[in-house]
């Protein structure tokens, strides 16, 4: 359940960044320099804005988390494995993006750091449940 709530928060953070990325809104940064990060070459993968990947990733996690609490899927090993795979990739990717901010772009985007923190929390929160389901059988 915690994973679902955190994933939904992640969707909105990613949507906010995406709205900026397509020029709909200015980005309120507070501390750091969001625009420097958002206008860097790392803000897109090919033609795909990174926030769009975030929306898709958090959206998939939300769907899996909600499925996981349905009675018919409660103990699904498939969902556990999918969740493990997705959160692992998510944590690795956000860690990579955080590394880029620190070591390559030399600027911080507070919303990107928030997203990385959310993904880490999702990973940690889902570990016990994933472990329980994956170890069974």
């Amino acid at each position, binding site marked *: *359940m915690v994973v679902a*709530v955190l994933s939904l*928060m992640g969707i909105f953070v990613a949507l906010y960044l995406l709205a900026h990325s397509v020029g*709909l809104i*200015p980005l*309120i940064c507070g501390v750091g*320099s969001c625009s*420097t990060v958002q206008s860097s070459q790392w803000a897109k993968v090919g033609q795909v804005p990174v926030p769009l990947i975030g929306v898709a990733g958090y959206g998939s996690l939300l769907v899996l988390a909600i499925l996981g609490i349905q009675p018919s899927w409660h*103990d699904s090993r498939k969902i556990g494995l999918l969740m493990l795979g997705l959160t692992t990739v998510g944590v690795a990717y956000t860690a990579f993006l955080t590394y880029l901010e620190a070591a390559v772009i030399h600027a911080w985007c507070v919303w990107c750091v928030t997203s990385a923190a959310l993904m880490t929390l999702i990973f940690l929160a889902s570990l016990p449940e994933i472990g329980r389901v994956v170890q069974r059988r």
Partner: protein
Amino acid sequence: MGTRVWSFHEPGVRPVSKKNRQRKYGSGEEAPTASSGTETTKFYWILGAVAVLGVGIVGYSVGAKALSPTVSEPIEMDGLDDPAELMQVARGVVKGDPAAPISIIEFADFQCPGCGGFATQVKPLLDAEFVDTGKAKFVYYDFPLVSMHVHAFLAARAGHCAEDQDKFWPYHDMLYRSQSRWSTVQNPAGFFEDYAEDLGLDEDEFSACLKSDRHADVVTANMQLGYQLQIQGTPTIMVTQGQGVGRRVTATLEGIREGIALLQSGG
């Protein structure tokens, strides 16, 4: 054949026998119970609240920007590549005697912390030594770094709205003094209007100016002038004598003194 114990843990879900229940959840594990139904309901309420909050925040950000007539970014303008046309639109704000032989020119961004430091620490000393004594005039050009500072363009326009009421310089000082407050908010227009009120400007006139595209052409042209002068950061300070070419100097009192001394010695 074991005893069948039926349990109803969710509406619409098939009853589960004790045997199946043990197979499914293991002997030492908790199966979903009636209380998990309550928890699920609570969970959906929390999820709904987060969804409403998120849709509200993102929707407000996008909607406010889409519906507002306030121009807060550079506009499309034809002909700015032509220096003659550019100079007809680009315009700095002058402080001091317009006939003073030396010009101290600044390209600045109201949201840039370095410009804030220059405006509050160096400029008062410059005014006392050069501007108030009639030795030089100070000319301020907008160069909002819009890729980094989301409110810089609107702040530049606000400065020109204050200029309409002959209060550019007090407003300039106010914006820099309070930079840390308005820079970090979602929409600084309310702050800009408050500052206008504090300085005794006609609030309605200022507000109408701010919530329009007025002066967006001047700010855009000033930015273009900066690009043509290959300005890359702010504050950039230049000193000139008469119609001579500007000499870039360090944005310190010493740097500006040296630059002016070199101009006067013909160096």
